[in-house]
């Protein structure tokens, strides 16, 4: 039995600016429709300025001007009732924040208050949502720290006294101490070294399985997605261009952009020439017509320049927005050939 915890339907979030009489509209999220199931890790990949951060800002109910939700909805189906974050009142959002909907932030150094001990930061975060104080609160926090393999002393430490990996574990601890049903993780491991990164990723996965919550995991690093997620969605220029189970996305991608991302990953034990994608990500203020990937796409035909491809099912549980998805296969052949040899 799989149930959806999040249903996003035709979501459009634009930045509307009006400086000195010049109006500018940046279409950062332009019609995204997707769902996140209970107890899964959904990966979102996309390069900088692809709109992925704007998208998760909407999901995290942090919609502030100049960003505005123009159309569509993002409905969560929490235990205490459904809520649409695009229309909810601040009071409603307050009631789900941290307890049901939580957020792991990117830079642990800038997230934690440098002049406050970790224990105090925990109190700021967790005392109210947990509705506990005294011994029950302390036991809850200490039990959670133990699960994160952090010593109890960290509560007395200042952020600068901890290593990067430990700090990141503290931010994960803060985000998960209330056992939220839905966690948004925005590039939580980008600043970490390889060895620590793997540890932290493993920990997020462990905690997720332990609590049975859903995670939306955002990073541009495809190799992290390969090892971390159950399903991956690729965002390009404000639109979801492909979505599917992680394994299928890596071994049978159905969108040329995904195929390129996968094919360009260098691997140890393989020195064949990797292709590089020419061109640059389009500007969201003035995106190309038709399929937004067409100026950089090796498969582009005339139709791609004028008509926007819909996100259609192409395989079991797998959707792609490409007019030529059937022809994408050959692009990834070198990758699969390698796999057979290895």
């Amino acid at each position: 039995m799989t149930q959806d915890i999040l249903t996003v339907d035709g979501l459009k979030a634009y930045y509307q600016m009006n400086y000195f009489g010049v109006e500018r509209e940046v279409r950062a999220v332009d019609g995204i429709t997707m769902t996140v199931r209970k107890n899964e890790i959904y990966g979102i990949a996309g390069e900088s300025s692809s709109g992925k951060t704007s998208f998760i800002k909407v999901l995290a109910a942090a919609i502030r001007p100049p960003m505005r939700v123009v159309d569509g909805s993002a409905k969560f189906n929490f235990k205490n009732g459904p809520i649409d974050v695009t229309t909810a009142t601040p009071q409603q959002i307050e009631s789900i924040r941290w307890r049901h909907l939580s957020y792991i932030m990117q830079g642990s150094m800038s997230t934690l208050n440098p002049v406050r001990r970790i224990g105090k930061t925990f109190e700021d975060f967790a005392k109210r949502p947990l509705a506990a104080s005294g011994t029950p609160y302390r036991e809850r926090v200490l039990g959670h720290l133990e699960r994160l393999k952090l010593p109890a002393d960290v509560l007395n430490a200042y952020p600068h006294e901890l290593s990067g990996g430990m700090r990141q574990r503290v931010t994960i601890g803060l985000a998960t101490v209330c056992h939220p049903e839905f966690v948004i993780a925005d590039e939580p491991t980008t600043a970490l070294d390889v060895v620590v990164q793997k540890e932290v990723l493993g920990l997020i996965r462990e905690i997720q399985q332990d609590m049975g919550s859903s995670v939306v995991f955002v990073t541009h690093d495809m190799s992290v997605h390969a090892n971390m997620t159950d399903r991956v969605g690729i965002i390009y220029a404000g639109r979801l261009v492909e979505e599917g189970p992680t394994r299928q996305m890596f071994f049978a991608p159905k969108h040329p952009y995904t195929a390129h991302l996968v094919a360009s990953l260098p691997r140890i034990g393989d020195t064949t020439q990797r292709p590089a994608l020419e061109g640059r990500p389009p500007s969201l203020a003035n995106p190309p017509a038709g399929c937004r990937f067409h100026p950089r796409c090796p498969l582009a035909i005339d139709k791609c320049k004028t008509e926007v491809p819909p996100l259609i099912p192409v395989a079991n549980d797998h959707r792609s927005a490409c007019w030529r998805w059937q022809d994408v296969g050959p692009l990834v052949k070198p990758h699969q050939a390698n796999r057979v040899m290895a």
Partner: protein
Amino acid sequence: MSTLLEVKEVSKQFTMGGMLSRKIVRAVEGASLSLSVEKPEIFTIIGESGSGKTTLARMILGLELPSSGEISFRGKTVSHKVGRAERLEFMANVQPVFQNPFEAFNPLKRIDRYLESTATRFLKLRQRDDIDAAMDGALQKVGLSLAEVRGRYPHEMSGGQLQRAAIARALIPNPPLLVADEPVSMVDASLRMSIVNLLKSLRDDLKVSVIYITHDLATAYYISNRLIIMQRGRIVEMGDARTVLDNPEHPYSRLLKASVLSTEDAGDGKLATDPGMVALAGELVSKPGRLVDRPDGRLVRVYG
């Protein structure tokens, strides 16, 4: 064979704290390597943060003086405490490429101004046409052109283009050696390979040697000829890139390789690190050990 760059038993210590709580940090200890003039190569320095890889690069660039040991470039000792003419000559030969192109360029200054000042300073060009030709030549090498870059500010270009412009700037004086400190870690996935392939073609077509500093083993395997792996200031393994990474011998190198996330088993969710490996690599940090030769040409640090 003549040597281009020779790093001999170089160490660097930093003193931290005041008089009572003085602490000495050994950023680099006894590092040796050499590059030859005849055989341009991509020489990779791999290490985590705090391994001393950036300190080593700064010493090679002459921005930092070694506490002991010597670095020489074409037989001359590298130092910033030399005459202006000599320093400029060295800077024309060894050029840096930095990690974040958005920080390397002043956002209020046009990109071609940087290229122009590099051309006038190092090539001593004074004529407009000569300067333009030098700028365009360098930009062509990285797949850009002067027409695309002229008059533009850093925010008008993508990260990949900007990093290529940074490499073009470094190429203007036709240096035999580039020092690139994590040149791709801030560049988007779809543009990353264009930079990596560019470094490769600089070596193959323009015969430029590159010291490539990274923590990414996969790109290191892809482009480098030789590499060193550093752990807390010490070189723990050194040798041919393929030999070392295909079959790393030092426990720390093995841990690094095991921590690389592979896409071969995508979707299986394999994220466990062997705690024994982490402990073993951690134990060795405090031991000095010594580097020994192996029959396959690599150097490995052994203990006891």
